[in-house]
């Protein structure tokens, strides 16, 4: 896969924009890359998202990896701060997403397998 690192950075860029704009003032990101996969761990502190929204976020992010959409549109990720359509793009660029709310914080782990 080409531009692998840049694609991971785009995912982080998109989610940073979303959380800082919509939800919180404090976010942690941890990115781990290996030859097999990349893992992005996010902590969105003091989340204001309701349980229903978190449930919807989980559903959206676990939609399914879609390589043809990724190949065509990956450069759109993180480009715009006006709307949330790019979350669908993020879901097309990752294989699995774990989304949990614990002690008032939102914990997300995204896994992107190298293909």
């Amino acid at each position, binding site marked *: 896969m080409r531009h692998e690192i840049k694609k991971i950075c785009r995912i982080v860029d998109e989610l940073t924009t979303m959380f800082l704009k919509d939800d919180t003032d404090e976010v942690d990101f941890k990115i781990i890359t290996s030859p097999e996969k990349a893992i992005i761990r996010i902590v969105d502190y003091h989340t204001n998202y309701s349980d229903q929204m978190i449930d919807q976020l989980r559903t959206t992010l676990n939609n399914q990896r879609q390589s043809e959409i990724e*190949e065509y549109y*990956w450069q*759109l990720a993180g480009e715009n701060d006006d709307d949330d*359509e*790019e979350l669908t793009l993020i879901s*097309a660029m990752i294989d699995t997403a774990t989304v949990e709310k614990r002690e008032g914080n939102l914990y997300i782990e995204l896994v992107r397998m190298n293909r």
Partner: protein
Amino acid sequence: MVFSNRIDEKDLHKEQKLLILAAFPALFLIFGIFYGLVEGTKGRTILEGLSAIILSPTTLITDFLVIGGIGAAFINSALIGFYNLYLLKHFKMRINGLLIAAFFTVLGFAFFGKNVINILPIYLGGYLYARYQKIPMKNVILVIMFSTALAPIVSFITFGGIFQEGFSYLMGILAGLAIGFIIVPLSSHMIRFHDGYNLYNIGFTAGIVGTVITSALRSFKIDIAPVNIISESNNPWIIGMLACLFIYLIGAGLRTNPTTLKDYKKILQYRGRTITDFTSLVGYGITFFNMGVMGLSSLLLVLLLGGVVNGPVLAAILTVVGFSAFGKHPKNAWPLVAGVILAGLFFSYDFSSTTFIISLLFSTTIAPIAGAYGPIAGVIAGMLHLTLVTNIGIIHGGINLYNNGFAGGLVAGFMLPIIDAFKRGDSRP
């Protein structure tokens, strides 16, 4: 914030979704064979019609209903439709909104510009790109389907009389291979110009590529003369068949999701900017219903304006239907239509002319502007679209079939920074 809706609908297997889509080429094939046989008794056989379509330079605007006859044109569209469905099945693609849009776009443009021969080198070029980059062909097939917008380059170089026969075949194939090879990285890069607000992004990319190629040809004193071969009379069978197919889509939507009528308003909350895949956001039932509604509305609009449902208009209607699975719905489309009609009134356009009708329908390529910034911005975008689209064809000499996608990209790229300049502060609540 807009996420996926909880969708409670009948689970459709991939084959069932493909079957729903296959109804279009299947009916086109049956209609084409019967109509072609009738036309054959009057002088032009189906094979002669298909041969005329394949040997045409196919530059804008070449209506295959005129060049090859109604029967051959529908058979050409059906064959291209089945070929693309086969590819989707072969590569085990998830039938998402974008693939539905690509399928209907290719199906529609097979009535003016794409034929069973001139698209093949472009697919082969895409295959070579995938091999070169060591990525699966399924990753690029979507872009390649759309990129057949530049198929007229293959036909023009092969049959336009600029090279000796024989050598021209080689040059035509090489041109198609080159387009298929470069279009994937180009289209991915060009989308940043309009930030995804122009749904026909490949039209914008193909406009740039077409401009470069046409300029190069002109440097060699080879000019691409524009043509205007269009059918001037309506055929009630074609109109009836289209209406039945759109009602069929509405029926398929209601059958897949029985609560579609109640839940249809959910689709209207989406702005439509790329990527708005309705199949994953609201499910297949509401998506098929929306496609049928948009198809019927487009057909009705054409007839109300006194237009003719010829090859280019068929392409426009089917493209609108396809992109109704990927961003378009009545709420974000009407301001563009209103803007084009207003500009048409102001500049005294003939509302029944094919050029005006296709500009009207294709203007919905920038429906996301109305979806994101409201109906007034949408109306202004529609007015700008008409003024641009009628003037930019000359730049690429008519070898980019998605001329409206090119214009839409320019309008979006021009308007978005201006809209942003009028916004104050940040949009954080």
